[in-house]
């Protein structure tokens, strides 16, 4: 029987299209993925369409070829739309479902002014998700509100004299359907303006390139509202974006990776996540051995929870993490065999000293290499030291499972930290850094704590870590003075809490330093004497950063990890203490293709990108270039780049919507693939 006959035969049978979800409720700003099942027809594909019910007014939103529905920015009246799936075989079968739309969640990002005088005044409220009947509340009391746009409301405020000096919470409530209130804690203070830091949009965006996964509008406004320092204070108190519970997942790490990117793009705890990633990279990146959620999730949590803690605690938690232990061979590391033929494993011992904490040679407090009287570098430790650290790290195994008998090598248990098994610990005396000894006869726990104390106390640690953190977040080639200032924040001489190793104080020092902030107002690169300033954007930071600039919507079905992996680690850069060797110019192609995919491909249901704001101005090449400058270059875009973007747009037709979109895509591609963007300034 030919295919055609088969198709005809089944087409005349009971053809049926089933659509799921069958009656969804969708909030503006979110998307929903529809799926259709075709039975009784050989051809299984459907064509999607969306429309308003008879008599409906407004726009119905859009649905992609793959069935991803995106609501309109403003609710139609009534607030329902009809999604239809029609069999592509022939128009004999279709099914229609009713979608109920709800108003978006309102988010308050900032107010202008920040201080309101006693008496009557007008307050501008910036944020997102505002709808025409939205209402502003001050400390829970509704005030007269005027809708300006989805991102701006104005309100009539009447503060009283007794309220002088108080902080009033500013919230916004959207009306039904789906009416909700904003949950952030934006406040205004009552009284005369005392000159709280004024931050330009460009400076706020640049700060967030360093402190976060780049800016989106809400975070930019928030930094402007609070100033850099108070923004960090707020971020220090913001709850962690969660990772999924490994027990609920299958063996694939894909959902964990997807959540990493969802968090990076949308998480409110931007600074925590960025710091966690920076620290994770300093400790060698995601362990190659972490091939399951059970291994990966606890590992990621170590950094998420330790990002704003003390480095000493992080050092311990990293060392006894089970996935780390598996990758670096801390778990099940045996003491020397009785005949001496087999000795403890040096893997973690060497990397801990060489690449995680101290470095191979002695450093000055500003990170420069300390020289002896012959002008030579001085080794920070010897091979014997490495071997003694390896002995310290014996006797640890996976935590004993409940009801099991502790063994020298327990079966894998990733949920908990490694646990000591004393009979497998080398109890001999160890001579560690700078000749400091651990006496014989100590337990595995005592030895590990003692050894990490010695590492933590080593004078190299502050400049070593300072340089590496600056390189992760700000510039690969900081001045010696910058390193010294951050290092002094690590030691208690800094402006921090007076506690050595306080990562909050260290991070403040990295981000608020004059050298980090020097580019905010400059507009012209390079700043005198700092020609080597800059930081190569790693793909795992650059991709979320591009998406945040586009105000993209990302969910847990995204496959951004694959896209990022195909972009490669990027060329090695000067000043990077561990350059990815054997990586060459050909990787440029991988990066270009990754940016191409972001701008041109359908990335599936997990990533929704609306180029609308860029398309809207793409009829005019100059306006398009200026918008790209604002979003991605903080206003310092060199004239040559601006001219080039105008030429790109000018070389393409730009009348129809499709043409304007092509212009926007081309200009963004050219700007984001350029060396000027790939090097974070």
């Amino acid at each position, binding site marked *: 029987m030919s295919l055609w006959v088969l198709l005809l035969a089944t087409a005349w049978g009971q053809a049926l299209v089933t659509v799921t979800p069958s009656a969804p409720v969708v909030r503006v700003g979110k998307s929903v993925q529809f799926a259709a099942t075709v039975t009784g027809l050989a051809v299984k594909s459907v064509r999607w369409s969306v429309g308003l019910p008879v008599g409906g007014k407004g726009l119905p939103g859009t649905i992609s070829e793959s069935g991803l529905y995106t609501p309109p920015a403003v609710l139609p009246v009534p607030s329902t739309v009809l999604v239809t799936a029609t069999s592509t075989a022939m128009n004999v079968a279709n099914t229609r479902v009713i979608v109920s739309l709800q108003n978006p969640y309102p988010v308050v990002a900032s107010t202008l002014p920040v201080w309101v005088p006693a008496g009557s005044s007008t307050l501008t409220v910036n944020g997102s998700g505002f709808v025409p009947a939205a209402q502003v509340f001050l400390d829970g009391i509704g005030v007269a509100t005027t809708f300006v746009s989805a991102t701006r409301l104005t309100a009539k405020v009447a503060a009283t004299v007794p309220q002088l000096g108080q902080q009033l919470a500013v919230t916004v409530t959207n009306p039904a359907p789906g009416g909700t209130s904003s949950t952030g804690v934006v406040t205004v203070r009552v009284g005369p303006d005392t000159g709280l830091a004024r931050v330009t949009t460009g400076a706020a965006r640049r700060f967030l390139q360093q402190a976060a996964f780049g800016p989106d509008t809400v975070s930019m406004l928030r930094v402007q509202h609070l100033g850099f320092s108070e923004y960090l204070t707020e971020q220090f108190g913001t709850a962690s974006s969660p990772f999924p519970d490994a027990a609920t997942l299958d063996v694939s790490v894909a959902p964990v990776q997807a959540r990493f990117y969802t968090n990076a793009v949308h998480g409110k705890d931007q600074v925590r996540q960025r710091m966690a990633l920076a620290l994770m990279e300093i400790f060698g990146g995601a362990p190659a051995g972490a091939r399951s959620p059970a291994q990966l999730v606890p590992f990621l949590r170590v950094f998420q929870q330790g990002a704003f803690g003390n480095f000493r605690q992080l050092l311990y938690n990293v060392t006894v993490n089970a996935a780390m232990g598996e990758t670096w061979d801390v778990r099940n590391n045996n003491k020397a065999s009785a005949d001496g033929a087999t000795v403890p494993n040096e893997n973690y011992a060497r990397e801990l000293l060489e690449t995680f904490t101290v470095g*191979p040679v002695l450093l000055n407090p500003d990170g420069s290499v300390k020289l002896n009287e012959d002008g030579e570098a001085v080794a920070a430790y010897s091979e014997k030291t490495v071997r003694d650290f390896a002995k310290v790290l014996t006797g640890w195994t996976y935590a004993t499972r409940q009801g099991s008998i502790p063994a020298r090598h327990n079966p894998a248990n990733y949920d908990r930290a490694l646990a000591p098994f004393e009979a497998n610990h080398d109890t001999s005396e160890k001579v560690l850094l700078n000749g400091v000894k651990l006496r014989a006869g100590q337990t595995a726990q005592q030895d590990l704590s003692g050894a990490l104390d010695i590492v933590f106390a080593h004078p190299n640690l502050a400049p070593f870590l300072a340089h590496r953190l600056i390189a992760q977040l700000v510039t690969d080639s900081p001045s010696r003075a910058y390193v010294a200032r951050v290092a002094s924040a690590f030691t208690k001489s800094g402006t921090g809490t007076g506690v050595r190793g306080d990562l909050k104080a260290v991070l403040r020092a990295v981000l608020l330093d004059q050298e980090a902030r020097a580019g905010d107002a400059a507009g012209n690169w390079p700043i005198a004497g700092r020609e080597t300033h800059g930081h190569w954007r790693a793909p795992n930071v650059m991709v979320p950063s591009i998406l945040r600039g586009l105000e993209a919507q990302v969910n847990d079905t995204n496959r951004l990890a694959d896209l990022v992996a195909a972009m490669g680690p990027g060329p090695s850069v000067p000043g990077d203490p561990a350059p990815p060797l054997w990586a060459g110019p050909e990787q440029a*192609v991988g990066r270009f293709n990754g940016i191409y995919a972001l701008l041109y491909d359908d990335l599936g249901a997990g990533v929704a990108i609306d180029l609308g704001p860029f398309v809207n101005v793409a009829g005019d090449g100059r306006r398009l270039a200026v918008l790209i400058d604002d979003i991605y270059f903080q206003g310092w875009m060199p004239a040559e780049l601006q001219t080039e973007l105008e030429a790109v747009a000018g*070389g393409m037709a730009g009348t129809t919507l499709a043409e304007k979109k092509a212009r926007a895509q081309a200009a963004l591609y050219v700007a984001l693939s350029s060396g000027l963007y790939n090097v974070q300034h």
Partner: protein
Amino acid sequence: MRRRDLLRMAVLGAPALRASCPSDYRALVCVMMAGGNDGNNMLVPIASAEGDPLISYSQYAKARGGLAVPLESVVRISAGNGDQFGLHGGLKELGELYNQRKNVAVLANVGPLAEPLTRAEYRGGKGMVPGGLYSHGGQQAEWQAMAGAAFGGVEGCEATEIPLPVWLGGGNGAGLRGGGDSPRMTGVTNLLRVDDGLTMVRGANTLTEVGLAQSRMLEAALDGVEPLTTAFPNTPLGRQLARAARMIQARGTLGVKRQIFLAAIGGFDTHERQLTDQAAALAQVSGAMAAFYQATVEMGVGDQVVTFTASEFGRTLQPCGGGTLGSDHGWGSHHLIVGDAVKGGDVYGKYPAMALDGPDDATGRGVWIPTTATAQYGAALGRWFGMSEEALAEAFPNFESFAGGAPGFLASS
């Protein structure tokens, strides 16, 4: 430093012309075994011709204990002087080539050295040692200096005739998407000339320009070229070497006289699980290198292409104990050179005495002080490649100060 050299070469081009570029074609292909390949299990001693008890399987097996590979698993080979060795069983294909076609050579105990160094000097803290010993980063840089940017300097060749090394591990081989002529690509190309004074932007532009140019050239050159019939293993290294073969295929269209390729394979940092992990990694090396050799024969350049291995260091003879046995970072190790120009079927250099605290041991754990410097290894390859003596002296500093100079595993051109 290597990166700077690369950039400098890209910007300034090849040195001034003095002679004309050789008319024949030659290529060097480096296979980097990243992580530190354990040479002790790759080239297992069986019996020395002179009956040296420290170069014997029993001595090896005693020192290695549970980490020793069984004698019955190795591919038996003989050195020219009658020494008996076993190549790791994972190197089945390369072992066959060694024994049958005699176009595989082994170079024993090679590694970075700053100057000739004795054990007494090392132990006494006297001699100069290379920087970053026992460190992945430090020693990879040393090897990359020898195996990557160093090659070039073939007298009379223009930059178009001897292009920059191609890092095969860097890309996935996919061409540039949307790379055809368009206002967009014009913009991209123009911007490669635009920087704002930051050195990193300049560096990024240069690297990007080289990468895009390589990609474009290859696509153009391979347009309409028949694929090779040689089948490559579908492994990371197999795919990299398959791409190298395609670029060699395009040599005529590209108008190149010399090509340099750098491939990399990971999985050699075997602090644990060495017996299984190293076997898998070496099997991948052997399968891919043997297929690549077949491809050069198919292209008629079997004696014009030399493939050689590199790795940041060897590993300690003394095992370390964890859940499963492994070994720690060492120094000197053994390497393979493949191609019809190779005077193969022989083991060059000096095999170390398999004894802890023995005459070759630097640290007491069976860490071999190299008896051949990487500079010598590189000079031998570079000389065959056609580098001038001045270029050799610059690329491989002091190579002649080491005993024996450049080893003779390649027929001199």
